[in-house]
């Protein structure tokens, strides 16, 4: 009788183990196969779809902006797509605009850079009921709904101030690297502001050559080539190099290190990526301009949302900028460290 019971117990335990094993296997199996389905099921449907068209979407600056903007978009029942070509096809902003218009999105966030025909495209989109918000670069003459960023005047005066700080009596030349299609550099607010500020600092006795260089539409890898070119002509190396975007700043930093010109060339950079901040800390880059990416992203979405809701929006959203020098970066790092 006892034997019988132990048999039964052994059998039950065995059966139990098998059942447990089977159930876990089944759930594992379900978990594996059902994963993709579940993801789809969890995907929320949003009311609006916005496109974001920028120069170098892979840069950490724009990734940061996109991150903030998407967060805000989702809060406002919208989805934001960053237009970037994952294929090798080399689409211009015009192509992206065409695509966005053709796919009838509910709004476009565009980094305007003066590319030919882009203003017309903005107008076409607006005509078709698609609001366009320009960021960082404004298409003043287009029908764009709003501009989010720092105005050229504001940016120019801020940079001018900084440049002036670094102008000494030995300063002979200043080079400003821009990515803007401006026929006449003298018409650029940034150029004018910096130039004016430098001259004012130097005084009448000293003549400083302020040059502006447009790096737009130079194609892939050509930013780096252009920057390297500047440093290769040794007698033409500027005393102060002003970089107006992230890519250029990083190229300049690398060129300074490569040509062993650290300390000889003052670089005034743009954006606060990790590499750039490290360079500032090491003194390779003297100071960098930090644009509030969060504000940039948020305001862009706000502008579009407001337009969708009310049919109109502010035509100008101002984004804060500040400059980070070695001290500021160290302070920032110190602040970040205990956390």
């Amino acid at each position, binding site marked *: 009788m006892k*034997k*019988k019971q132990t*048999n039964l117990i*052994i*059998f039950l335990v*065995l*059966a139990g*183990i*098998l059942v447990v*094993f*089977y159930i876990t*296997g089944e759930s*594992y*199996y379900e978990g*594996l*196969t059902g*994963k*993709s389905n579940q*993801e*789809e099921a969890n*995907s*929320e*449907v*949003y*009311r*609006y*779809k916005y496109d974001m068209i920028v120069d170098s979407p892979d840069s950490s600056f724009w990734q940061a902006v996109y991150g903030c903007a998407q967060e805000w978009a*989702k809060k406002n029942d*919208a*989805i934001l*797509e960053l237009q970037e070509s*994952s*294929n090798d*096809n080399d689409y211009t902003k015009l*192509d992206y605009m*065409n*695509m966005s*218009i*053709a*796919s*009838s*999105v509910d709004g476009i966030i565009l980094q305007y850079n003066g590319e030919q025909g882009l203003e017309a495209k903005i107008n076409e989109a607006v005509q078709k009921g698609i609001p366009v918000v320009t960021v960082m670069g404004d298409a003043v003459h287009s029908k764009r709904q709003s501009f989010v960023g720092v105005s050229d005047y504001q940016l120019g005066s801020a940079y001018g101030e900084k440049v002036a700080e670094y102008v000494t009596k030995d300063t002979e030349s200043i080079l400003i690297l821009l990515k803007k299609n401006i026929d006449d550099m003298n018409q650029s607010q940034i150029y004018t502001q910096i130039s004016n500020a430098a001259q004012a600092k130097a005084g009448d006795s000293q003549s400083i050559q302020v040059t502006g260089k447009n790096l737009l539409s130079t194609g892939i890898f050509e930013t780096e080539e252009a920057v390297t070119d500047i440093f290769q002509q040794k007698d033409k190396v500027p005393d102060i190099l002003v970089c107006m975007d992230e890519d250029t700043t990083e190229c300049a930093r690398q060129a300074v290190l490569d040509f062993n010109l650290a300390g000889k060339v003052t670089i005034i950079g743009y954006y606060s990526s990790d590499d750039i901040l490290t360079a500032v800390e090491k003194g390779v880059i003297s100071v960098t301009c930090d644009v509030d990416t969060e504000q940039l992203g948020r305001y862009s979405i706000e502008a579009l949302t407001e337009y969708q809701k009310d049919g109109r929006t502010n035509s100008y959203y101002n984004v804060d900028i500040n400059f980070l020098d070695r001290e500021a970066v160290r302070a920032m790092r110190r602040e970040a460290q205990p956390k």
Partner: protein
Amino acid sequence: MKQIRWRDFSLVSKIIIEVGMIAILLFSMNMLFYARINNSMQRMDNVYASNTELTELSQIFEKVQDNMYSYLKVKSSQALLDYYQNEAKYRDQLEKLNEENIDDSVKLLERNIRKMSETYLDCTAETVAAKRGRNVEKYKRKYDETTKLYSYIQSSIEELNNLMFQENSNTYSVLRAVMRYLEVSNTIIMLGIVAGGMVLLFQVTRKMFVPLSNMAETAQLVGQGNFHVKMHDTDAQDELGMVTRAFNTMVENLDLYITRTKASMEKEQQMMERELLMENHLKEAQLKYLQSQINPHFLFNSLNAGAQLAMMEDAEQTGIFVEKMADFFRYNVKKGQEDATLGEELEAVDNYIYILNVRFAGDIHFNKDVDESLENVRVPSMILQPVVENAVNHGIRDIEWEGKIHLTVTGDADYIRISVKDNGKGMTPEQIESVLSGNKEHCNEQSDSTGIGMNNVISRLELYYEESGLVEINSDGENKGTEVVIYIPV
């Protein structure tokens, strides 16, 4: 209703039920596994279905563009027809694409393709309409537009295809992992079931056959003669239960039979003993009976002779005669029931002859030749006197010549030879045969005899020594005398 108990099933049923249950379990698990694997296989089959669909979409899309182009080029109605057909097809295909704003790169791309395609189709429709309306400037412009859109859409489809392929590849590898997992888990579960089943089968089967091995042990004990061992009683209705009960009954009966046989054998022994005893008694009775056959006539005759002698002379001779008579009868009475020594027998013969010689006035010439060393041998009583009496009565009485009787007693290692020889009438071989076989009994004249015939002597000798052929009668024929020889075993 009678309760159905496990132990009442027959062995065959039990084993079939157990093996069957395990087989069913294995079968069902197998079916389950089969279903699972089949399910996975189906999923695997469908993994790249989306890619196929998308490629199809792309092909139709290409046809739309080609048809439009050829219509613009040649303006053939066939091209227009094809264009409309493919356009409708393409629209149908588009319906399958997502059009919602969903935070998923694939879905979003689908939406873009769908929306762009819609724009594209509107554009192609306008282009075709412009061509039909011969608005050259417009259809050219529109064609450029559609071509641009076409390239966007194609590249988007390509991108989507890539994305999907990536996703599907992931799904595929997941499914592969699942298949591997299934393989392993199925194998383990199967092994578990097989092992468990074996253990269970072993346990149950062993339990089933435990009574058998017990029985074998018990049978061995029984074989050694121990009938008091027994199997545990069971009420199971299976073969083993029946065998157990039959075995118990068999052991019980075996015990019973052996006891019975023992008792009957004892009884038989007793009976045999009694029979033997009875035979003895019978022998004794026979002996007594035979001894009591002595004819009383002789006594009266002798007593008459004594009386005559006493009348003739009142003398010594009568005294001797009467004494001899007395001796003879005393011996007769005394030894009638037991054996005697050969010497005593011889004395009785002497007395008898004396008495006869008195009666017949010395007509009988009797002499004897005895090995005296044999006189103490014990023999049955009253064997010599009847033989001598026979020799007198049937041998030498009424013969013309002088009758003589010669008695010799000799001995060797095995037998004592007693010979009584007369020179009387002799006997034919038929007579000898008749006497020896005892048939002559009835012609025994009861007139002048001691009552003990030859037959009696032979019978008593044979009974006493339990041996036949102890008496021999030799005669050379009529008037040539007779010799009766008695062999006494030493």
